[in-house]
């Protein structure tokens, strides 16, 4: 599913990310651990085609992400990768349903209204379809963000600190939801977090900084 080879990225001279080899299998759920500044977010951005690494190859489903032209990479990300951000990043001017519709329309896919309704129902937001993000609680917003990430049935679901802005109950609920949704869709799930509350829920763990293949294996 995902393979990284000799990936290196540095903002300055000190590399933030230095991965000689990393493989994540289809359908596996990985937790990415590490203190802040250890490159979790950078790794996720590299994985999703948002941040070109200084060198190295990122393969997703057999496609080399940074070999393709930028426009194709954007479309690829839109269609195959669902991203959940720590700050949710919902569009405030759009209703919950419109936020969900944004995913297929930005990715150049047909807008499946039934899918949006089903997702909201599944995530317990059936009655919030017409609400706007600022009328929702933090937990509800995060669920909308998850629903939006799932809209295009992506084989890869990526979440960056999805629970750190939430209270205990919501954090557990969001972890449940991510795992449940990923299993339902047969999606690979990669969650970066420093949130100990959800750490024991995942079968595979990767601790950053990842420096070599050995390190990656030891951590599993």
């Amino acid at each position, binding site marked *: 599913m995902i393979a990284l080879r000799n990936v290196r990225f540095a903002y300055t001279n000190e590399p933030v990310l230095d991965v000689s080899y990393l493989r994540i299998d289809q359908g596996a759920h990985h937790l990415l651990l590490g203190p802040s500044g250890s490159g979790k977010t950078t790794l996720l*951005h590299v994985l999703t085609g948002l941040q070109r690494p200084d060198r190295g190859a990122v393969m997703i489903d057999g496609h080399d992400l940074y070999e393709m032209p*930028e426009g194709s990479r954007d479309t690829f990300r*839109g269609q195959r990768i669902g991203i959940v*951000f720590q700050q949710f*990043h919902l569009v*405030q*001017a759009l209703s919950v349903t419109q936020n969900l519709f*944004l995913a297929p329309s*930005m*990715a150049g896919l047909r807008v499946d209204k039934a899918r949006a309704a089903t997702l909201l129902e599944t995530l317990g937001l059936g009655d919030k379809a017409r609400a706007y993000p600022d009328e929702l609680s933090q937990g509800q917003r995060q669920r909308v963000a998850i629903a939006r990430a799932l809209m295009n049935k992506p084989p890869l679901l990526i979440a960056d600190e999805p629970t750190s802005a939430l209270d205990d109950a919501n954090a557990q609920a969001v972890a449940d939801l991510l795992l449940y949704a990923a299993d339902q869709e047969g999606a690979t799930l990669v969650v970066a977090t420093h949130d100990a509350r959800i750490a024991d829920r995942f079968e595979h763990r990767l601790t950053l900084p990842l420096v070599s293949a050995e390190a990656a294996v030891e951590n599993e």
Partner: protein
Amino acid sequence: MAAVTFPRMINAQTNMQAAAPAVETQRLLNLLGIGLDALRLFGIVLIAAAALGVGIALYNAMRDRRYDLAVMRSLGAKRRTLVAHALLEGFLLASMGTVLGLLLGHGAASALGAATAGTRTPVPLTGLTFVPEEWALVALMLGLGIIAALIPAIQAYRTDIARLLARG
């Protein structure tokens, strides 16, 4: 010969004052002409100020929506989609402004005509005619809208999504 001497004779020997209609009309038009030139210049200044205002408004609107733009990219939008988005915003704003401006202008002309219709000095104005030059105005306004949207569009193109999204 009489055309020159007769007015002078009247001015010199009577209480009356001679005035040649052609000359006086010419003088009046010259005076008005200065006013019209000033009005035209004023109009140009107004258009420039409006373009600047729209440009700044669009720039700020785009700044406020940096995160939305980054989110759109993360959801699969291409850079050129965002640029089109920014230009379209300028175009739509300019279109609405042009329509509103034309309606107000024609309306004001009609209102002035109607208000002075029964008085001793009626101003024969109507807003119901449409002069071809107004098409040039429409083209100018839409062009300005797009130019005003250029900087925000470039800004949208350059958005560093990774950095923006990481900052949260």
